[in-house]
């Protein structure tokens, strides 16, 4: 049954893609994209137009995106934290070299992640990418030493406070400029290509970076320690 149905479904899907996808490059960028590129610097003073779109023009969508990430991570942690012992393999302790190397690299990687999300309005990068790098430094630490305890309370506070402050910043936009997450007249826009420029964009991206970093770190910790609460072999 499956062997007959699968080729039929794949053929239909292939036909749909063949019809729907233009296989040549478009002649020009879309009208809305043209507007963003043309007025992005004048509106927000951010060199990176993609950041401008994500944090300012479509900032509400980004709030939704952050909520989706939060919900899926919460769901994953909830599913993993049920207290039934499940240990897939007994971990071998990592060697001295790996442990020392991980401790040595943790700081620089964390700093690099912070650099990425603080420069989101100037260079490729931003809150989500920087947050992922921050979480990867935590992953490195946990890979080197599985029993390292994480400060769950601190991570939870960072995560919820940054999410809360994101909404507060958006509300300030309503109070001062009349629209949610507005970037007009709240912070000075500054000079093009300065670190302290683009008004609220770096502030929001730092908050997003902190939120995504702490969320993914909690997720990694939950995955490493899933089912270990009882400490018994399944």
């Amino acid at each position, binding site marked *: 049954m*499956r062997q007959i*149905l*699968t080729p039929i*479904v*794949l053929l239909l*899907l*292939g036909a749909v*893609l*063949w019809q729907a*996808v*233009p*296989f*040549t*490059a*478009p002649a*020009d*960028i*879309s009208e*809305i*994209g043209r507007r*963003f*590129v*043309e007025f*992005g*610097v004048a509106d927000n003073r951010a*060199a*990176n*137009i*993609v950041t401008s*779109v*994500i944090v300012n023009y*479509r900032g509400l*969508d*980004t709030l939704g*995106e952050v909520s*989706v*990430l939060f*919900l*899926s*991570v919460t*769901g*994953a*942690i909830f*599913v*993993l934290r*049920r207290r*039934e012992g*499940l240990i*897939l393999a007994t971990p071998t302790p990592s060697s001295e070299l790996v442990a020392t190397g991980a401790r040595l690299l943790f700081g620089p990687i964390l700093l690099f992640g912070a650099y990425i999300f603080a420069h989101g309005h100037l*260079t*490729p990068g*931003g809150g989500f990418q920087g947050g992922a790098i921050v979480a990867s430094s935590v992953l490195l630490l946990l890979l080197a030493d599985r029993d390292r305890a994480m400060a769950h309370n601190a991570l939870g506070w960072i995560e919820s406070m940054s999410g809360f402050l994101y909404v507060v910043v958006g509300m300030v936009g309503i109070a001062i400029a009349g629209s949610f997450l507005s970037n007009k007249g709240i912070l000075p826009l500054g000079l*093009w*290509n300065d670190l302290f420029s683009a008004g609220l964009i770096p502030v929001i991206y730092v908050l997003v970076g902190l939120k*995504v970093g702490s969320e*993914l770190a909690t997720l990694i910790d939950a*995955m490493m320690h*899933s*089912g270990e609460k009882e400490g018994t072999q*399944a």
Partner: protein
Amino acid sequence: MIEPTTLYTLTGALLILIGFAAIMLKRNLIKMMLGFVMVEAGVHLLIICFGFIPGRTAPIINTPDLLTDPALMSAVPQQFVDPVVQAIVLTAIVIAVGVTALMLAYVVRLYGVHKTLDVGRYVSLKW
């Protein structure tokens, strides 16, 4: 000579088809999940291609006196690819990560309950 955009879109469409084939034909949950990940990657590639124009660069403005020179300003949209699709894909990648993590968590739980990753042996799901 084949156009680069054609190559990229074909790769994206092929990735989607391979991913769906993996979801439908494989019985191992991890392999089915990898099929999902391939579909996601193919969709991201396709969406990026909708705004990609060969010869143009990523939309990061690198002309310092852009605000003072109107002639430079009007030439700007001709230099860059579409930022809208890039923003959409950035959103989609983040959500794909979250969804993949959730899928993996369920795979771990299912393995804990059934002691197998083979969907054919999850008899409680059969009718």
